[in-house]
């Protein structure tokens, strides 16, 4: 069973507001992924980290999101100015170095009104 912890489970924001969600990866997992799952079940990769360093991110994330994975603190993903189209389930996953199996948290469901 996964031990990735995501908070909060639900987040409601108005358009233009900041929306911040957190993720604690499984202990000892240095690689963290963030995905967005929309209402059509489409997964969009947003960003991944190894330890505190960004490995890859998409253009949207670079422009509109702020993400970090500081040592000894939860990882976080923050939308700087929420848009209606950001309403989705945000999933965090972690994996161990050298392993390819991903372990997911329960997700943060964001609703932007």
């Amino acid at each position: 069973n996964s031990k990735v912890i995501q908070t909060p489970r639900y987040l409601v924001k108005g358009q233009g507001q900041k929306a911040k969600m957190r993720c604690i990866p499984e202990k000892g997992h240095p690689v963290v992924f963030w995905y967005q799952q929309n209402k059509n079940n489409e997964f969009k990769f947003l960003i991944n980290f190894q330890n505190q360093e960004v490995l890859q991110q998409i253009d949207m994330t670079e422009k509109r999101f702020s993400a970090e994975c500081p040592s000894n603190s939860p990882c976080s993903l923050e939308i700087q100015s929420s848009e209606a189209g950001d309403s989705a389930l945000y999933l965090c996953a972690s994996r161990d170095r050298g392993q390819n199996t991903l372990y997911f948290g329960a997700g943060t469901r964001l609703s932007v009104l």
Partner: protein
Amino acid sequence: GQQVQQSPASLVLQEGENAELQCNFSSTATQLQWFYQSPGGSLVSLLSNPSGTKHTGRLTSTTVTKERRSSLHISSSQTTDSGTYLCATATSGGNYKPTFGKGTSLVVHP
């Protein structure tokens, strides 16, 4: 980039029937993982199976890497199996970044 197609999109069964779910992908994958997503949204890893056949409980996955396809067989389905089954694939290397299909929604009636 990698594309992942899952079929069928939805499946309705009576308890006790078997289910066969398919996953086809556009590029050779070195990693393939099947997930179960509950109606509440949580993803649970079922099997990692980049090639060959793997079993766990009532689940059997068969991946034919050269043909870029994988299947997940659920035997003797139960109502608690209802949910969405997702396939994710990735290629090896520094750009490891799994790509997900849109899933198969399974409903098992009592």
